[in-house]
């Protein structure tokens, strides 16, 4: 009885153990663990695809005593995305933290040595979070995620990075505590922690409303929803490139996943529309503010980080729409669209940060105005930025395009037309900030001899970009099939 859910959590965890134990072998062992972890994660996705919802109650006690792991379509989708992104980030990291040619240890070596164990811990936290079916277990995974993410973010060692990630750590702690308070309230009222059991007994009322406000509030802090986003841009912009990619693509997404999970499983049915509308309004503000700041950003990574703030806003606009839609295909489509948006953004933002890392490494800086030569010297990286940009803007054939189309169409059908200008304005601003970067790629310098100059670092990024900009949009249909398992339909 090999439990694939457990393996998905243990593979990266044991990998972290191994690289902690043998730091000198870190890149090799880490990569091996990454491959295994990705395989385990994808096997869960495949398992849900073929067998439907997977669930295991650990320890043989059964809920409510035990902790349940559960993978439904939503978990599987995000798990699949995070497995692919994390694998790419791992491959990239091998190339990014270059071992020195002459055997002399370099700063990169030291960073890599610290990177691998923390990164694998982060990964197992992510998988554990996506698979958790227990409110308190989620708190532990959130903390594991927050701690390892903050430590990873500070790996560059620059003052800005350390400061920003310290703030991130503190904010994350605050968010988790508020979430935990909500859990405490739930336990006080209902005496169980399993989400599935709670879904059956939770009733509308002040207790549930307060608990929801607390839990979602804490998670919104972690998901960097406007106006609680202040910590994100500096933390993500100053981390090493593979870490930025993971933070922006996966870690904030994990918090969003939780919001969606709790919303769909627990709180959606008992929440007034006004609460959802509040989330939507904050999302709208995030879109406009984040996009505007991205447009004004002077550095490429800062731009990418602000763009994350904006993109998280799109995800939260989904809530009022989902809440307002009557159960049925329309609501299902909206749920799937929001998930699709999250997946696409995950791939795109990871690709963008990885490419930005290459640019920064080559140019020695990432000031957008001075990037001309560097951008052109790295055609693959520039191309990746372009592909990621396509997905961030929402141009076809990216997944974002499909998702936005559905969201716009449904908001028009339901008469909630006010989301349309918000989304479109955000799109136009996104065009502005993406092409601000891309226009640097054109100057009279001849392009280098090769399209790909560092395959280990550039190809994963390129593939992520291509996934976001092409594959997810054209092949979104399977997501609906996947979500049929326990989420929609």
């Amino acid at each position: 009885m090999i439990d694939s859910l457990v393996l998905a959590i243990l593979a990266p965890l044991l990998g972290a153990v191994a690289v902690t134990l043998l730091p000198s072998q870190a890149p090799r062992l880490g990569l091996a663990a990454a491959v295994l972890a990705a395989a385990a994660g994808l096997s869960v996705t495949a398992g849900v695809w073929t067998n439907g919802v997977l669930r295991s109650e650990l320890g043989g006690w059964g809920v409510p005593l035990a902790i349940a792991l559960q993978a439904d379509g939503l978990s599987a989708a995000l798990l699949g995305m995070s497995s692919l992104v994390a694998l790419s980030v791992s491959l990239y990291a091998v190339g990014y933290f270059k071992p020195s040619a002459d055997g002399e240890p370099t700063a990169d070596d030291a960073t890599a040595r610290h990177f691998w164990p923390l990164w694998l811990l982060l990964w197992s936290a992510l998988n554990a979070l996506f698979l958790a079916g227990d409110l308190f277990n989620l708190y532990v995974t959130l903390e594991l995620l927050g701690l390892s993410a903050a430590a990873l973010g500070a790996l560059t060692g620059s003052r800005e990075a350390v400061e920003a990630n310290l703030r991130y750590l503190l904010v994350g702690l605050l968010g988790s505590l508020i979430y935990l308070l909500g859990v405490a309230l739930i336990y006080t009222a209902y005496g169980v922690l399993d989400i599935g059991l709670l879904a059956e007994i939770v009733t509308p009322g002040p207790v549930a409303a307060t608990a929801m406000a607390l839990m979602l509030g804490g998670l919104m802090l972690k998901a960097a929803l406007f106006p609680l986003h202040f910590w994100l841009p500096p933390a993500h912009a100053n981390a090493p490139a593979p870490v930025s990619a993971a933070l922006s693509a996966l870690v904030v997404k994990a918090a969003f996943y939780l919001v969606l999970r709790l919303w769909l499983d627990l709180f959606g049915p008992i929440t007034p529309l006004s609460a959802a509308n509040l989330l939507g309004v904050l999302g709208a503000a995030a879109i406009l503010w984040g996009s505007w700041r991205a447009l004004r950003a002077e550095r490429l990574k800062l731009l990418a980080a602000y763009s994350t703030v904006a993109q998280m806003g799109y995800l939260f606009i989904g809530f009022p729409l989902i809440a307002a839609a009557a159960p049925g295909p329309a609501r299902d489509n909206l749920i799937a669209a929001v998930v699709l948006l999250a997946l696409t953004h995950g791939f795109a933002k990871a690709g963008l940060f990885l490419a930005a890392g290459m640019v920064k490494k080559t140019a020695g800086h990432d000031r957008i105005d001075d990037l001309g030569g560097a951008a052109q010297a790295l055609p693959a990286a520039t191309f990746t930025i372009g592909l990621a940009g396509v997905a961030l803007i929402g141009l076809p054939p990216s997944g974002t395009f499909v998702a936005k189309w559905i969201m716009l169409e449904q908001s028009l059908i339901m008469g909630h037309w006010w989301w349309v200008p918000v989304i479109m304005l955000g799109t136009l601003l996104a065009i502005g900030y993406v092409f601000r970067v891309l226009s640097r790629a054109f100057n009279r310098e001849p392009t280098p001899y090769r399209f790909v100059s560092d395959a280990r670092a550039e190809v994963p990024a390129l593939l992520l970009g291509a996934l976001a900009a092409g594959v997810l949009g054209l092949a979104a249909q399977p997501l609906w099939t996947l979500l049929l398992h326990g989420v929609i339909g």
Partner: protein
Amino acid sequence: MIATQLLYVGCGILLLILGLWSFLVHPPLLRKLIAINVMGAGVFHILVAIAYRGIDTPPDPVPHALVLTGIVVAVSATALALAFGQRLDRDDDR
């Protein structure tokens, strides 16, 4: 028993709010950490209080276990945050 519970729950809520207030208005790292820890103590307070079931009924062990886990997590986070602070101080000393 309910009264005791409510007293300690109320105390926990007050701790939480005090901690939150301090966290929001005091910028120094150490004060923020103390604030966070006081907040955590507030949440733990609540959990332990609701686990209490009178002087002659065994308490609910589940919240106790949760709080124990929470304490470990809080200590880890505090230690990490202090290491961050130390790193910043060292940079300043250079």
